[in-house]
């Protein structure tokens, strides 16, 4: 097992990426900002690491079309700053964006945040990619139009591929307007009561953007709304009425606590400011937190820096799990979870479990017809990264063989599947 490869290549153009892939014999790791370096299976020994963080910058932002193409190594928080000047955003709020996660990395790891309830994950927001395959072939698919059915959607294939099928060099994204106002309403209570609230909420016409339960004593349901400056408060009132006694509006900073749980480091998000803390990115503003515009992190040799989880290792192992939304609460209750962030509308949760319980957790999720993958864990933990393989595994192996016949790219990420 090698975590630090003997050679690091840092190309700054797509052509240099192709040259690097062609001119470097052997097996290659692909690294971005390093915010998900320990997700999925551990890398096998590699001959070199291809670092994409020199591959940055906006290629074309078309504000009128609400599309942008960027180099894959661009941190999303940097992109958010640029397009935010036009009051546009990528509607993705994955927890690690403030820590410098790159556009390519977010796509390759299939990451998403609470607003996936409405906007989906990267697979719903990406409309084009350019990728360098293991033999140096540069492949383009999609483009700057959101409606497009010409050719195979290669971006989907790269979504969740963890660098095993190709090196993303350019990504074209669909943008959304920055909401004029946002608000978050919280109600304290255990997961079971949060699930009951959610069941009523999703049947209501209130259109929540996010609906997440975070563990604690007793835990808390967070519901985010977006809307117009003069109208949102009316919907906030309706939401508080629906959630009943104890529902109250909270500062957006509460989502930092959520992000900390997703990173597997509970407590980091709670810095004593509480619900009505003095942070200046308050609610009913312009959603700046979600765009990761805080300038509090820089790349730190692949470990990430700034924001929650910057300096703390997760206690145990962090698992990402997904199941039908109504099955999620009972599934979580079965797991020996020490920290939970659960999307009760999406059916996607991030849970921290003791390292020894990872295999058992995979099995429990599979028994609920769900999916699971290992995210962050301590360096010495030897635990399976994936649950039982999907029935489509043979075709996935065939695709890997066609695109990377020598198994050069990111070996080990899908161990033991392939």
């Amino acid at each position, binding site marked *: 097992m090698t975590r630090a490869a003997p050679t690091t290549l840092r190309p700054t153009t797509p052509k240099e990426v192709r040259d690097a892939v062609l001119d470097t014999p052997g097996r290659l790791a692909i690294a971005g900002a390093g915010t998900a370096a320990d997700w999925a299976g551990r890398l096998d020994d590699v001959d070199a690491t291809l670092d994409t963080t020199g591959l940055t910058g906006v290629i074309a932002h078309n504000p009128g079309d609400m599309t942008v193409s960027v180099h894959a190594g661009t941190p999303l928080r940097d992109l958010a700053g640029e397009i935010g000047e036009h009051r546009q955003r990528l509607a993705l709020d994955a927890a690690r964006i403030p820590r410098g996660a790159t556009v390519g990395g977010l796509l390759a790891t299939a990451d998403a945040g609470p607003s996936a309830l409405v906007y989906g994950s990267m697979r719903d927001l990406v409309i084009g990619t350019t990728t360098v395959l293991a033999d140096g072939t540069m492949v383009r698919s999609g483009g700057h139009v959101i409606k497009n059915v010409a050719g195979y959607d290669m971006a989907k294939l790269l979504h969740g591929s963890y660098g095993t099928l190709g090196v993303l060099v350019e990504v074209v994204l669909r943008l959304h307007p920055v909401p004029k106002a946002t608000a978050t309403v919280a109600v304290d209570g255990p997961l079971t009561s949060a699930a009951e609230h959610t069941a009523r909420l999703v049947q209501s016409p209130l259109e929540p953007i996010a609906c997440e339960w975070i563990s604690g004593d007793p835990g808390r349901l967070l519901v985010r709304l977006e809307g117009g400056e003069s109208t949102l408060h009316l919907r906030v009132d309706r939401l508080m009425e629906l959630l009943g006694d104890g529902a109250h509006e909270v500062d957006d900073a509460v989502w930092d606590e959520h992000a900390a749980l997703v990173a597997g480091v509970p407590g980091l998000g709670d810095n004593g400011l509480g619900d009505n803390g003095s942070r200046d990115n308050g609610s009913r503003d312009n959603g700046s937190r979600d765009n990761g515009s805080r300038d509090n992190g820089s790349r730190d040799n692949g470990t990430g820096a700034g924001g929650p989880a910057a300096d703390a290792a997760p206690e145990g192992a962090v698992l990402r799990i997904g199941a039908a939304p109504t099955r999620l609460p009972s599934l979580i209750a079965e797991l020996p979870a020490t920290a939970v962030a659960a999307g009760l509308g999406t059916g996607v949760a991030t849970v921290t479990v003791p390292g020894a319980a990872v295999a058992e957790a995979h099995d429990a999720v599979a028994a609920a*017809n769900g999916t699971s993958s290992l995210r962050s864990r301590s360096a010495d933990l030897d635990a399976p990264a994936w649950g039982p393989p999907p029935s489509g595994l043979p075709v996935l192996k065939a695709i890997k063989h066609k695109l990377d016949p020598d198994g050069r790219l990111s070996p080990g990420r899908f161990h033991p599947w392939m």
Partner: protein
Amino acid sequence: MPLDRRIVDEFVGVLGAADVLSDPIKTRTYECDGLTGYRVVPELVLLPRTAEAVAECVKVCARHGVPFVARGAGTGLSGGALPVADGVVIGLNRLNRVLEVDPENRRAVLEPGVTNLEITAAASPFGLYYAPDPSSQQVCTIGGNVAENSGGAHCLKYGFTTNHVLSIEVVLPDGSLVTLGSDSAEQSGPDLRGVFLGSEGTLGITTKITVRLLRTPETMRTLLADFPSVAAGGQVVSDIVSAGIVPAAVEMMDALAIEAAEGATGAGYSLDTPAALVVELDGTAEECDDQFEQVKAICDRHGCTRLHIAGSPEERAAIWRGRKAAFAAVGRISPDYIVQDGVVPRTRLSEVLDKIAEMADDAGLRVANVFHAGDGNLHPLVLYSEADGEVERAEELSSGIAELCVAMGGSLSGEHGIGTDKACSMPTMFGEDDLEAFHRVRTAFDPGDICNPGKLFPTPRLCGERPGKYRPHPLEEQGAIERL
């Protein structure tokens, strides 16, 4: 070459004789889809009733190298379901059950032959609906929607089929039955579901689909606005988007399209306007009302000559009836027409429409324009008369428009697919390396090249033929071959 009798017997053994059609009179029904210019009578038509039977049929095909083409309602407009002469068509209309509606998880499980509108019909008692809404939604099937990644008027805000399908059960070209996708938005590994969606039947056959359902919006507000020019209407669209408003739908029609649609439906469109815009907003009452006022103000600012606000569900339905009938209605003003399906970045709409008008003038033909203005998906209808010998000019103009869209940074197809129709234009949009990579993906699924072969990729055979209406092959005219 006719299929070996023993192979036919194997299909009969799987399905029973009644579900295997070989009579040329019956199989001829399956000779084309909505693109009637290409016709091939299949050797056999198989009509399985279960996913397992589909898989068994495909296993027979795989064992003997028999090419197969899956087909639903046949409403496709790009020849994606064109049969292969020495192969079989696998018709999926008998797999037409809504297997489950799960209101708590807001999803439905469907067999591929369920029509698009039947999904919403099954979901509506629970206050839910299925968002993607192709114009053919009364007859097109969800299996076909999956194959084509179908869109529709409401996809600007809500996304396309690929954004609403959680998982699919598919029969791969080796006959294995697998599930792609998962019960939640999360899944393990590369998004094979997403690659399969929109692959036009070239990677396998879908036998079960789990879709997301959305809550029926609290409020819907629809307006029909007339403008002195298409450009003014286009500017309204840009301003709406710039104001941070994402309408549920924004559709535009030009004078010719309005003339046809109004003549056919009497929906209340103005006959003397150069352009009409349909804008629909939906959402919570507060947000919808607020945004609606902004949209009205934007329309006024750009010289709107008439603003008709649907005052009742019936009036809203009439506005949409006019828009959705536009294609078929064009038959009233022209003996023949070709529907084109290019996409351009929204901001280039005006430019591309001017250019299309110039190209039409040069060709001496009329073009009616109906388009999804919010997402830049054009549907220029090239009007012509076959009787007057205008076929070739019409085909050239139609292909020229599609390739113009690519030159403007757009796409050959927004929702109808590449199929047989535009396979030869693919090199205008993709380089050799891109096409080669697509081919690698294709062969990973289908190493034997038996699953809907000849579609999507340019092939010498296909590109030696011309799109458009059927015309006899030279050998046919000489009496050397016979067309069934």
